[in-house]
């Protein structure tokens, strides 16, 4: 099996003022090349923690994380991240934000012209070519998120990690960006790991949905295979019985098996 990421018996404990807090325990997960995996679970269960571990932004306190057979010792451009709050640099315009990433990855092999062409192509891919010269505060939240996605894709990463990429957006913008993402993923065949709160989004976009139990000491509860043909169309899916089954399975997991005690 060609797993690009292997998570083996990983645990993550944070040192806090009140002592050690175990966020993740005994997490085992394999991500295959080219597949799209969603992480879903209640707020605070440790989805971001797991994603940051794969990104290498934090290191696990126990267990092993492998990427391409090598231990993950820190972040690297082969694992691009789309941050929840877009994290564009406010003093660089959209073009420069993407160019910074492109330059880092490709400048060893390519000239300035090729780098600029790559940057423009990435902006066009998310339909943001018109805003290349704008500063982040001059564009809308959805547009910022698109630039963040363009920046990540422009690096041609082996794996794309996204932490609730559309979490802060309204439903319409969200749907439009999901469709855009479906197109981009189909074009690039990227391996994607994505955190989401949204059951429909998880089913619509993923090959597998990883459902996490509630923390502390959260782990993977169930993994659901979404056997829907690609490319997917949100209107047709609404009438698809398998789509409904997948939705029901996730809802059942979240709201029966992992019911959050009303705080």
């Amino acid at each position, binding site marked *: 099996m060609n797993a690009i990421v292997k998570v083996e018996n990983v645990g993550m404990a944070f040192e806090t003022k009140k002592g050690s807090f175990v966020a993740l325990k005994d997490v085992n997960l394999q991500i295959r090349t080219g597949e799209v995996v969603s992480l879903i679970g209640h707020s605070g269960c440790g989805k971001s923690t797991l994603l940051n571990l794969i*990104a290498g*932004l934090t290191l696990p306190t126990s267990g092993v994380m492998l990427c391409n057979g090598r231990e993950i010792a*820190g*972040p*690297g*451009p082969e*694992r*691009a*991240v789309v*941050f929840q*709050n877009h*994290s564009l*640099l*406010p*003093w*660089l315009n959209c073009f420069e934000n993407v160019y*910074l*990433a492109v330059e*880092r990855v490709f400048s060893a092999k390519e000239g300035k012209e090729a780098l600029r062409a790559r940057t423009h192509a990435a902006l066009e891919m998310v339909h943001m070519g018109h805003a290349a010269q704008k*500063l982040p*505060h*001059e564009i809308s939240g959805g547009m910022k998120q698109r630039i963040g996605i363009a920046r990540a894709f422009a*690096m041609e990463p082996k794996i794309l990690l996204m932490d609730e990429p559309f979490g802060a957006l309204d439903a319409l913008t969200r749907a439009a960006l999901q469709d855009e993402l479906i197109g981009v993923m189909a074009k690039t065949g990227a391996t994607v790991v994505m955190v989401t709160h949204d059951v429909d989004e998880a089913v619509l976009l993923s090959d597998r949905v990883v459902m996490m139990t509630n923390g502390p000491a959260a782990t993977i509860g169930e993994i659901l295979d979404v056997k829907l043909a690609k490319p997917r169309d949100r209107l047709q899916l609404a009438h698809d019985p398998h789509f409904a089954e997948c939705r029901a399975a996730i809802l059942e997991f979240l709201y029966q098996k992992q019911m959050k005690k009303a705080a």
Partner: protein
Amino acid sequence: MTTATLTSGLMAVRPEADATPVKETDMAATSAATPALVSTPDNSVSFGEHFSNFIRAVLPPLIGFALVIGLWALVAMKSADFPSPAKTLDAAVVLFSDPFYQNGPNDQGIGWNILSSLKRVAIGFGFAALVGIPMGFIIGRFAFMNSMLEPIISILRPVSPLAWLPIGLMVFKAADPASTWTIFICSIWPMILNTAQGVQRVPQDYLNVARVLNLSEFRIITKILFPSVLPYMLTGIRLSIGTAWLVIVAAEMLTGGVGIGFWVWDEWNNLKVEHILIAIFVIGIVGLLLEYLLLLIARRFSYGTN
């Protein structure tokens, strides 16, 4: 941290820093009113609005100035030494009709005096920036340097820069570089502390971007650290120039030569109190202009992040 309280304290004393956003919302309000102007042919309403806005902005300061001048005239009537506003104005007209005359080193126009004070401030200040900003970066970036230098800075910072004047005189054996030296000393602390604070407050998100992109140290400094520290640095510079302008007057009184502080002292020896009053106004206005200039620069670099 001490810088934070220092900053907010000064902000409270200088309301013009807070007043600027109000101006902007006023502008937004008037531009929002423009479409209404198109739809309603009767534009006397909006004219009246403009007029009342104008009155509201201009009237209170005018009343303030009028009260001060009235009080001043009253005091001048009761006292033999104190010149009246009219007499001071006459003296000012004479002074400013020829601000750049030169009758030997000790008798020069008020323009020359202001310029030589500004030159000292600029030089001392420039050196302070040259030393203080890199030092702030180092202190902010390396915890070891921070704990090594913080206690020293904490002891030295509250010391009046004038206490350093004799050291300057001893080292440089001349008055002019000695007063520049006091400017250097008083400007350097806010620059170091604010820059260091800016470096420590670079948002973790941006550093994460740098880590994911695996940027080189050079790119991290030029594309992430420097731009995000810049607003803090400019605050440091603005605080420094305020104190520098306060200190130069005192330093020049002690050292002599050409300069607005020396000029004040000289006019006191000549018993020309009206000139001293004029100097007080001039010093205040120049200080205000310096501050305003830096506020403009700071706004240019604020990226609309808030």
